[in-house]
């Protein structure tokens, strides 16, 4: 058995509050191989903080501590900010929720994707252009030459998110962290984007961390699901074993979703103040 690609042990995140520090992530640990891992939780569960901590993206006043954060044999905790920048994007990259805020509005799409490549690799201009075109092709953008010349506001949300994915994947990273990559998109586009991420991940033998509030969506696109609640992982499930969830929180989450053939008069709700044991 080889070492896992990414090893996280006992992640704790603390913010200062008016009545002293408040801990929002209480010791999250997991191993990630070349697989698709889902992290599910509601707002405030610490799922996004966990994703960002992996890239050391949390800044002051957040305090992040880990017992162990090892990626491909590299101790990320020991790296300087400059070395960390070489990891971000090139080896581990991240797709955020809304492409509107993640793309630079005054740069054409082609330039931005090329920029993502140039930062990490030194390539001749023509080579860059071919790679960008190939990448846009891969994310199923029909007319790459036209799209490369467009500005972000000229494309739809789904196309924007595909551009983001192209930008994140062009340096060929090992891990892609996707934080609610489709919540800003229409249902019909959501499936396309997730299918695309899925194909790219499986095709390139990468690892995926998909962060979302939607348990069933995550189950559909991942091999393994971590359910987070109030800064803790309350349950770990094989994606196919959703119905076998034993934790009351996971069960509550599954039951609270209205169904298309809804006949219930009242949806079951959870006791929000419940503290679950691990």
């Amino acid at each position: 058995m080889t070492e896992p690609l990414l090893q996280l042990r006992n992640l704790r995140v603390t913010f200062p509050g008016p009545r002293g520090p408040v801990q929002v992530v209480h010791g999250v640990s997991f191993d990630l191989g070349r697989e698709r891992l889902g992290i599910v939780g509601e707002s405030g569960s610490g799922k996004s903080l966990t994703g960002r901590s992996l890239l050391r993206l949390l800044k002051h006043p957040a305090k992040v501590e880990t017992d162990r954060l090892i990626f491909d044999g590299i101790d990320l905790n020991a790296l300087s900010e400059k070395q960390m920048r070489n990891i971000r994007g090139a080896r581990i990259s991240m797709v955020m929720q809304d492409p509107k805020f993640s793309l630079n509005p005054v740069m054409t799409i082609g330039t931005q994707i090329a920029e993502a490549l140039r930062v990490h690799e030194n390539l001749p201009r023509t080579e860059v252009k071919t790679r960008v075109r190939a990448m846009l092709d891969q994310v199923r953008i029909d007319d790459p030459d036209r799209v490369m010349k467009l500005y972000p506001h000229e494309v739809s949300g789904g196309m924007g998110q595909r551009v983001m994915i192209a930008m994140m994947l062009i340096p060929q990273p090992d891990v892609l962290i996707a934080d609610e990559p489709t919540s800003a998109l229409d249902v019909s586009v959501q499936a396309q984007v997730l299918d695309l991420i899925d194909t790219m991940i499986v095709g390139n033998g990468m690892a995926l961390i998909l962060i979302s509030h939607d348990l069933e969506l995550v189950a559909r696109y991942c091999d393994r699901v971590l359910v987070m609640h109030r800064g803790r992982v309350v349950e770990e499930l094989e994606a196919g074993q959703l119905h076998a969830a034993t934790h009351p929180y996971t069960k509550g989450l599954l039951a609270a979703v209205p169904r298309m053939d809804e006949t219930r008069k009242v949806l079951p709700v959870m006791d929000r103040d419940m503290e679950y044991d691990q």
Partner: protein
Amino acid sequence: MTPALSIDHLFVRYGRTDVVKDVSFSAKPGESYALVGESGSGKSTILRSVVGMVRDWRGKIEVDGMPRQGRIDLAFARHCQMIFQDPYASLHPRRTVDATLLEPLKVHGIRDRAERVVQMMQDVGLDPRFRFRFPHQLSGGQRQRVAIARALMLEPRLLLLDEPTSALDVSVQAEILNLLVRIREERNLTYVLVTHSLPVVSFLCDRLGVLRHGRLVEEAGVSALRTGTFAEPYSQELYDASLGAGDRDLAALQEATRGMGM
């Protein structure tokens, strides 16, 4: 019976193009009607035209038999209120819950204000302890309860709901949906709901209209939604895309996951 809301050949212009084209529908008193569609289908624009937030419309809008003009007068405010999508944007950031709920009472010169505020907070399931909190001290669900309470302060008959739960967590959404069902029963309200989420419609509504690119492509009862039998191909397409997000049954889900080759 006069419809609670009747819309007849409505066109709404935005810039140089019509974003709503020839839409007609009506909601009976006590009915819960849903307008569904993807972004850009014009569904929110219709609600905004009803309340006068969008001015450039042609056609006929009648609320309880009264044709709508541009202005919002006190009588209209007492008859029809709206609940917005984003509870973070719909509450004034510098006003406490108390001040927000008092505002409609002050505008309409209604008495016994403090009692009414406390009573309303209890009615929508807000702990009266939160009365003097600012919006940033509330969770998303609590904020949406405040917004609902604010809309109910004037005891309206017609409630327009613009994606009332899409900014909320799943478990919070369930609470708010339950609340909306309960207050409709208790107060015999008419709902006109705009949403992209078909399962929400299934839970909350009696009838729905499907919008696409500003046109109403189909009207159907909620039974068509529950069984997935729409007449129009676009409605069916929307239905199929929504399946799985919230409602695939677990066996089918398992199937799907296995099928993807793990």
